[in-house]
């Protein structure tokens, strides 16, 4: 292993925030003499990547293996990558400052479509050929995973293998398989092929796309790759001694995952579909891991994370116990993105003790009809009650998330967002003592609907960008101004997300062309250029606007048909039809099975820690 620190250090004097590149944080595990080296990469800056909980979970799992070193890699900011190229310094890992190309395996999570060019940037900086088939015997295996693995095709060409689903056990199996292949002296091709024998692992080189658009295995690889699911989240402790960054990272706090999965069934939400079933961790484990984590990290804030934390059947008990244990320590407890209908008075009181972290709600749509069509299952009364409770409990700011361009949306639905915000503001004002009304703020963040694989809206097209912009203007004009901070996600970025979220294998050439044209950090608005992407995609034969807007045949082939998320196509189709009729479907953790197919298909079951959930 070559430590390149001597070559890195001189560059640090000329770049922003050098703390990103120096390692030596609290909690770092260094195993320079290990026989096998794993690099785990998050394809964005240190500040964004260090907030990723999956990497912490996987690093903690790898640390249980003897003789295995796990090292972190992030994408150097543009000033650093320019300096590295100018001085021929290759991409390095943080822990041992070793060139990434010298690792045995490089694991890359794919959190969203706007990080795709960062993956290519990293491979290029590392000196690893971009396309899997161009790599030689000495290059590390490049293995992907994360949310975007549910439609891996646009990135398939750049990966030797891609894991679909939970990584706690699968990653260890991948490492064991690769180590066995190395010990047996197998070639790269044979080692990669062996990975295809692991449940949940997709080896793109073993599949071809037919003229009908269907992805099929070339030989004995499985016809469909079935998503890995960890049946019981409590099998492993939540990582309690993660690396504590010095730099001000995005979510700079201790985190404990309280449950995985969400079966509320919002029809636009990929996470809610592909992380089923709901698996709660018991209160005892949550409190134990939270206290251990605060003690080990020294953080001043604790976040109880999941897709829908307020749904946890024992959340009030957990908060009460944590409040007792943390009294007088100045420690804040936060719960990300609360569901409006589960924000109760006791919950408001429990979260309001100590420091008040931000409060975020996601009504998603302004009208009841559209909320029913997307299966949000929240009434306006519930929204206003939650706001009243929050402001009565002392909050003075609330953030609301909405979406425009949802299937079946009309102009009336868009202006209904403004009307709802107006009533939210009035409710907040009424619950705030007159002397404190000056600091009252309602932040409204509006994104554009992106159709995602394995959701009931996977066949839908995205609204054309001109129409998105017209509706944005309409909403801005209708929105009350006083006390409301309105922001829109860039419609151009959403268009690109739609193309890549829907895309097949042919999109890889577009991603590569965009990177060659200079696209990197596409999630950072100052670096994103829709024109550059449109041109790059056109060079790959893709008309971006038309591709994003195209609605697909609900019985035809989809580029991700070979990825089995456990959801039955009939369920997704039925849900799509119910959307047209604005019919809602209940959450199976509160009532009857909805027949989504996941539990019987993947051999798992819903795990509710308290035995029962209260709606």
């Amino acid at each position, binding site marked *: 292993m070559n430590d390149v*620190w001597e070559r890195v*250090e001189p560059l*640090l*004097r000329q770049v922003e*925030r*050098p*703390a990103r*590149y*120096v*390692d*030596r*944080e*609290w909690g770092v595990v260094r195993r320079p003499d290990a026989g096998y080296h794993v690099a785990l990469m998050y394809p964005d800056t240190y500040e964004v990547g260090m907030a990723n909980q999956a990497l912490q979970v996987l690093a903690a799992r790898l640390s249980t293996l003897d003789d295995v070193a796990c090292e972190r890699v992030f994408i150097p900011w543009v000033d650093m990558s320019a300096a590295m190229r100018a001085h021929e310094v290759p991409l390095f890992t943080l822990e041992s400052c070793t060139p990434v190309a010298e690792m045995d395996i490089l694991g890359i999570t794919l959190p969203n479509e706007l990080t795709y060019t960062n993956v290519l940037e990293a491979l290029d900086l590392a000196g690893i050929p971009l396309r899997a088939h161009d790599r030689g015997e000495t290059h590390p295996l490049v293995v992907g995973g994360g949310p975007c693995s549910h439609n891996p095709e646009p990135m398939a060409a750049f990966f030797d293998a891609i894991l679909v689903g939970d990584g706690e056990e699968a990653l260890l199996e991948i490492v064991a398989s690769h180590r066995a292949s190395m010990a047996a002296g197998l070639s790269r091709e044979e080692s990669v092929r062996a990975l295809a024998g692991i449940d949940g692992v997709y080896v793109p080189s073993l599949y071809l796309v037919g003229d009908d658009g269907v992805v099929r295995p070339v030989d004995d690889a499985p016809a469909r790759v079935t998503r890995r699911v960890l049946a019981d989240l409590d099998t492993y402790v939540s990582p309690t001694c993660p690396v*504590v960054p*010095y*730099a*001000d990272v995005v979510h700079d706090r201790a985190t404990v995952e309280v449950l995985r999965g969400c079966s509320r069934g919002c029809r636009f939400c990929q996470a809610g579909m592909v992380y089923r079933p709901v698996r709660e961790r018991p209160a005892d484990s949550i409190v134990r891991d939270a206290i251990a984590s*605060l*003690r*080990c*990290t*020294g*953080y*001043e804030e604790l976040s109880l994370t999941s897709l829908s934390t307020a749904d946890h059947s024992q959340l009030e008990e957990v908060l009460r116990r944590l409040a007792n244990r943390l009294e*007088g*320590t*100045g420690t*804040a407890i936060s719960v990300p993105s609360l569901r409006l209908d589960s924000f109760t008075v006791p919950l408001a009181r429990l979260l309001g003790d*100590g*420091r*008040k972290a931000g409060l975020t709600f996601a009504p998603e749509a302004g009208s009841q009809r559209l909320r029913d069509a997307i299966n949000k299952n929240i009434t306006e009364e519930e929204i206003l009650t939650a706001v009243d409770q929050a402001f009565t409990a002392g909050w003075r700011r609330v953030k609301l998330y909405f979406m425009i361009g949802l299937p079946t949306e009309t102009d009336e639905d868009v202006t209904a967002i403004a009307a709802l915000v107006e009533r939210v503001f009035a409710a907040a004002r009424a619950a705030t003592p007159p002397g404190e009304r000056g600091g009252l703020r309602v932040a409204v963040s509006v994104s554009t609907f992106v159709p995602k694989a394995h959701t009931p809206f996977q066949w839908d097209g995205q609204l054309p960008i001109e129409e998105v912009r017209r509706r944005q203007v309409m909403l801005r004009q209708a929105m009350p101004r006083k006390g409301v901070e309105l922001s829109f996600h860039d419609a151009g970025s959403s268009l690109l997300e739609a193309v890549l979220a829907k895309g097949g294998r042919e999109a890889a050439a577009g991603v590569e062309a965009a990177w060659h044209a200079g696209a990197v950090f596409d999630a950072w608005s100052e670096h994103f250029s829709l024109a550059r992407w449109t041109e790059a995609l056109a060079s790959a034969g893709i008309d971006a606007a038309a591709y994003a807007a195209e609605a697909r045949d609900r019985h035809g082939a989809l580029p991700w048909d070979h990825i089995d998320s456990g959801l039955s196509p009939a369920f997704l189709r039925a849900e799509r039809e119910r959307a047209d009729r604005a019919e809602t479907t209940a959450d199976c953790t509160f009532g009857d099975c909805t027949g989504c197919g996941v539990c019987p298909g993947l051999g798992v079951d819903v795990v509710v820690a308290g035995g029962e959930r209260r709606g």
Partner: protein
Amino acid sequence: MAEGFRLRVCFRKAGRLRYLSHLETGRAWERAARRAGLPYAVTQGYNPRMKVAFGPALPVGTAGMREYLDITLTRFVPVAQVQEGLGASIAEELAPVECGYVSPAEPSLASRLTIAEYEVELERGVPPQELERSLDALMRTGGFETEHKGKQKFFDLAVALPKEPEVMSDAGRAAVRMWVRMGPHGSLRPETFMSAAIGPGRPVAVTRTELFIEDEQGWIRPL
């Protein structure tokens, strides 16, 4: 009336961690105090925070051998126990050097610490004699003008430097030890002084070796 026990910690910021900013260093120490389980006091109000205050900021890239922070404890903990606890709770590069209690009525570190001692290491190829001549020449001018954030700023050396800089030489590597007076209007950065004396881009490493309180009896250490 200030209450509680005011613990003063003298610490390093060295090795790779000299690339931390003042804010990053501060956060690291607050977390170390939590990890060490110190009975720290918290502020009252909407967002309770640890009661901790730091000495003058050290720029990104500059190392420090004796930096200071004050933290208010709600009960007395023996000094040896504090130092051991903190030492085991923070990276080696930020290790505590010394701890002690000071009067809760003591003015803040930032207002009391007015003299900084630096060691500036230069790249090979600057002979000590030549360096000595350049520094003497600059000192004799009495002051110099430099551009800072687009504005011209004049440094009166009699005010900015309370003592003549000294040239040191170790195995062919030249270094300068200098003392800078810090005030509410900022202070002369060693890099600025060195580039005025020998041209830009020459220092390879800057270390703040000591911080002093200036009073009638002379320069005293804060601990």
